[in-house]
C-alpha cells in the first residue's frame, strides 16, 4: 500500500512536470510553425531560436498586474479560470503513454491510473470544462464576454455529440472502456490500428473526431468564442495576468488531451507502425540522425550569425539522442514513448497548420455544420460499425 502511494506521487510529479513543460513549449512550437508558414522567423531573441521565450512569457504573465473590473460577480469570476484549468489538466491522468516499465525493481504502467471507464471519464471532465468558459463569460459583466461565453457553451455542447459518437465506434471494436485495453487490441502494426482496422476502418470516425476536437478546443476554424475580430477576446476579455494564463493553458492542455485521445483510440497508442523485428526500432534513430545532420549543415551554411553557434549544438544533441535510441537498456521504454509522442505531435501539428491556413466559420454555419452534417455522419458511422462488429463476431 505504501509503495502504491509513493509510486503514484512520483508519477504525478513526473506527469505534471512533463505536461506543464509541454504546454509551455507547445506554444513555442506553435509560434515557430505559424511564423514559418507566414514567412517570418518567429521568436528569435530570447535564448537561441527563442527557446527561452516560454520562460519569459511565464515571468511576464506572473508579474503582470492582476486587474479585477468593478461589478463582476467575484466568486464566479475567480472560480472560472480555476475550473477551466483544473478540468483541462485532470483528464490527462487516464491517458496511457506506454507499456509497463521497471524502475529500481518496481514494475509499473506509464499511466497515472487505469480507470475501467477511462473514456467516459475524459468525456465527463472535458464537458465540465465548458463551465469555466461559460461562467467566465457570464461573470465578467462585459457584453463581449457574455457573447463569447454563450457561443462557447452552445458550440461545445453541440460538438460533444459527434465527438462522443466518433469515440463510440472504436470502443465497439475494442469491446472495452479502458484506454489501456483499447491500445492493447491495436498492437501489431498499422493494419490493426483502429483507423484502418477491419471489419470497418474507422477513418471516418477519426476525421469526425478531429473536426469535433478542433471545435471542442476552440481552435481555428472554430475559434468563435474568442473571435478576436468580432468579440475582442471573447470570454476572457476581462481577465489579466495568471487568470488569463489559466485560460490560455487550459486551451493548450485540451489540445494535448484530444491529441492523446486520438492517438490512443485510433492510432494505436504507443505501438509502432510495424513490428520491431522488421526495423521499426531504427526509425527514431534515423529521424534524429537526419535532423542532426540537417542542423549541422545549416550551422555550417548559416543564414543568421547566431545560427553559426546554436545550430551545431542542436545538431550534436540530436545525434546524441539518435545514439541513445540504439542502447538496448533504454529502448524498452524510450521507443513506446517516441511513437506515442510522434503520433500525438503529428496531430498537434495539424492543429497549428490549420490555424495558419483557414478562415473562421460564422456562428450559424458552425451550428449547421455540426447538426446537419457531422452528427448524422457520426451516427451513420456508428450504425455501420455496430452492424459489422455484430456480423463478424
Amino acid at each position, binding site marked *: 500500500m505504501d509503495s502504491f502511494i509513493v509510486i503514484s506521487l512520483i508519477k504525478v510529479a513526473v506527469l505534471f512536470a512533463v505536461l506543464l513543460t509541454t504546454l509551455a513549449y507547445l506554444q513555442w512550437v506553435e509560434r515557430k510553425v505559424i511564423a514559418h*508558414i*507566414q*514567412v517570418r522567423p518567429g521568436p528569435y531573441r530570447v535564448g537561441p531560436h527563442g527557446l527561452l521565450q516560454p520562460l519569459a512569457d511565464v515571468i511576464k504573465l506572473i508579474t503582470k498586474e492582476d486587474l479585477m473590473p468593478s461589478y463582476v460577480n467575484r466568486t464566479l469570476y475567480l472560480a472560472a479560470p480555476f475550473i477551466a484549468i483544473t478540468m483541462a489538466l485532470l483528464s490527462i491522468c487516464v491517458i496511457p503513454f506506454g507499456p509497463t516499465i521497471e524502475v529500481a525493481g518496481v514494475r509499473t504502467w506509464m499511466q497515472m491510473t487505469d480507470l475501467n471507464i477511462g473514456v467516459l471519464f475524459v468525456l465527463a471532465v472535458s464537458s465540465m470544462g465548458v463551465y469555466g468558459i461559460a461562467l467566465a463569460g457570464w461573470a465578467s459583466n462585459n457584453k463581449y464576454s457574455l*457573447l463569447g461565453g454563450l457561443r462557447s457553451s452552445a458550440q461545445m455542447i453541440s460538438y460533444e455529440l459527434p465527438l462522443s459518437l466518433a469515440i463510440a465506434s472504436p470502443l465497439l471494436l475494442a469491446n472495452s472502456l479502458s484506454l489501456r485495453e483499447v491500445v492493447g487490441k491495436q498492437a501489431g502494426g498499422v493494419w490493426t490500428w483502429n483507423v484502418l482496422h477491419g471489419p470497418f476502418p474507422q477513418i471516418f470516425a477519426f476525421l469526425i473526431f478531429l473536426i469535433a476536437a478542433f471545435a471542442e478546443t476552440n481552435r481555428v476554424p472554430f475559434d468563435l468564442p474568442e473571435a*478576436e*475580430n468580432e468579440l475582442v477576446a471573447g470570454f476572457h476579455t476581462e481577465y489579466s495576468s495568471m487568470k488569463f494564463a489559466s485560460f490560455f493553458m487550459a486551451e493548450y492542455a485540451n489540445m494535448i488531451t484530444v491529441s492523446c485521445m486520438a492517438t490512443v483510440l485510433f492510432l494505436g497508442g504507443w505501438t509502432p507502425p510495424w513490428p520491431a523485428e522488421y526495423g521499426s526500432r531504427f526509425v527514431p534513430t534515423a529521424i534524429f540522425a537526419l535532423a542532426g545532420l540537417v542542423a549541422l549543415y545549416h550551422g555550417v551554411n548559416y543564414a543568421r550569425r547566431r545560427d553559426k553557434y546554436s545550430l551545431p549544438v542542436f545538431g550534436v544533441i540530436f545525434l546524441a539522442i539518435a545514439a541513445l535510441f540504439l542502447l538496448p537498456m533504454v529502448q524498452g521504454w524510450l521507443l513506446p514513448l517516441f511513437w506515442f509522442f510522434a503520433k500525438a505531435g503529428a496531430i498537434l501539428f495539424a492543429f497549428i497548420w490549420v490555424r495558419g491556413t*483557414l*478562415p473562421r466559420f460564422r*456562428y450559424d454555419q458552425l451550428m449547421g455544420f455540426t447538426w446537419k452534417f457531422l452528427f448524422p455522419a457520426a451516427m451513420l458511422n456508428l450504425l455501420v460499425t455496430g452492424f459489422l462488429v455484430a456480423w463478424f463476431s
Partner: protein
Amino acid sequence: MSESGVPGITVLETGQTETGARRMLLNMGPQHPSTHGVLRLAVELDGEIVTKCVPDIGYLHTGIEKEFEVKTYQQAVTLTDRVDYLAPLSNNLGYCLAVEKLLGLEIPPQAQWMRVMLTELTRLNSHLVWLGTHAMDIGAMTVFLYCFREREEILKIFEMFSGQRMMTSYFRIGGLALEPPRGWHQRIKTFIDSFPSKVDEYEDLLTTNRIWIGRTKGVGRMTLEDMLDLGVTGPMLRAAGLKIDARRDDPYTSYEKFDFEIPIRTESDVYARYQVRVEEMRQSARIVRQALDGEKMKTQMEALIYHFKIVTEGFRVPEGEVYQVIESPRGELGFYVVSDGTTSPYRVHMRTPSFGNLQATPRMVEGTLIADTIASIGSMDFVLGDTDR
C-alpha cells in the same frame, strides 16, 4: 439604455422583441480590433443579429481642410498625404491636378507617366492592406502577412523615391519633387515581375476556400440604386455592376494612353468586392508594367522638373475655383479648390470616397449577424483619416 450620456449617440432606443426579451446595445469601437482605426459603431443586438447600427465618426478629425488655408499651395501637398494614409500618392495627385488646372499648367509627359506608375503602386499598396486586414477579420491570418510582405517592398520603393515610406509627398505642383533615384527601373521591374504570382498565392488561400466563400458570398448585399443614393463609389460600385472608373471616364495624367480593364461583378456582395479588388491589383500591375516599358520612360529624366522655379519660389494662383476628380483606390476622390489670387488656397474641400462608402454601413449590416457586420465593414475598405479629414 436609451440615453447613453455621450452627445450624438442618443438615437438608439433599446427595443423589445416580440417575446419580451430586451435587446442589447453593444458599443463597438472606437477601440475595437475590426473597426479599422477609430470607427465607432453603436450596435443593437437581438441575440447575434444586428437590429440597428449607427456609425459614429469624428474620432480622427484633424482639421486638415482648414489647415490648407494657412499653407502655401506647395506646402499643402504634405497635408494631402495625411488624409488617406494608405494611399498618399493618390491624394497628392488629386490635389496637384486641381491646382495645375487652376494654373493652366501642362506637365511633361515623362512626369505624367511617372505619376501614373507611382499612383498605381499606391493602389497596390492600399489594396494589399485592405486584403490583408479584411482576410484577418474573417480569420485568415496568414494572408495578412503575405500581403504585408509585398507591401513592404512597395514601401521600400516609395522610400527610394521620396525618402519616406508612407508620407511621401512626392508629387508637387508642376511635376515631381525629386529626380527619380538611380536604379529605380530595375527595382520596380523586379517587383512587378513577381507580383502576379503573389496575387495567385493569395487567391490560392481564399478564392476557392469553402469557408471563405461561405463567409463572403451573399453577405453585405446592397442594391446599386441604394449605393448611388448614398454616394458610394469605387470598387463597391463596380462590384454592383456599374462600370464606372474616373481613369477611364474622365482620364487624367494620360491614363487614356494605357491599356487596362475595369473589372466588374454584379452580385454586389462581399465576395464580389473581393474579386473586383483582386482583379484591380492585377490590372494595376499591368499599368505599372506598361509605364515601365513605355518608350518615354527610357529617356533622360531631367525634363521632369522644368517647372523648377515654380517649385522653389512659390507662386500666385489666379482667382477661380476648380473641381478635380481622380480614381483613388477607395473610389472617387474629388478636390474642390478655391483661389483668391494669393499664394495659399482660399478653401479646399475634399470629396473623399471613404465618407461616402461608410454611409452604406447601416443599410448593409442591419438584419445580419455580428460576424457579417465585420465582413461587410471590411469589404467597404474605408480609412478613417479619409472619412474625418
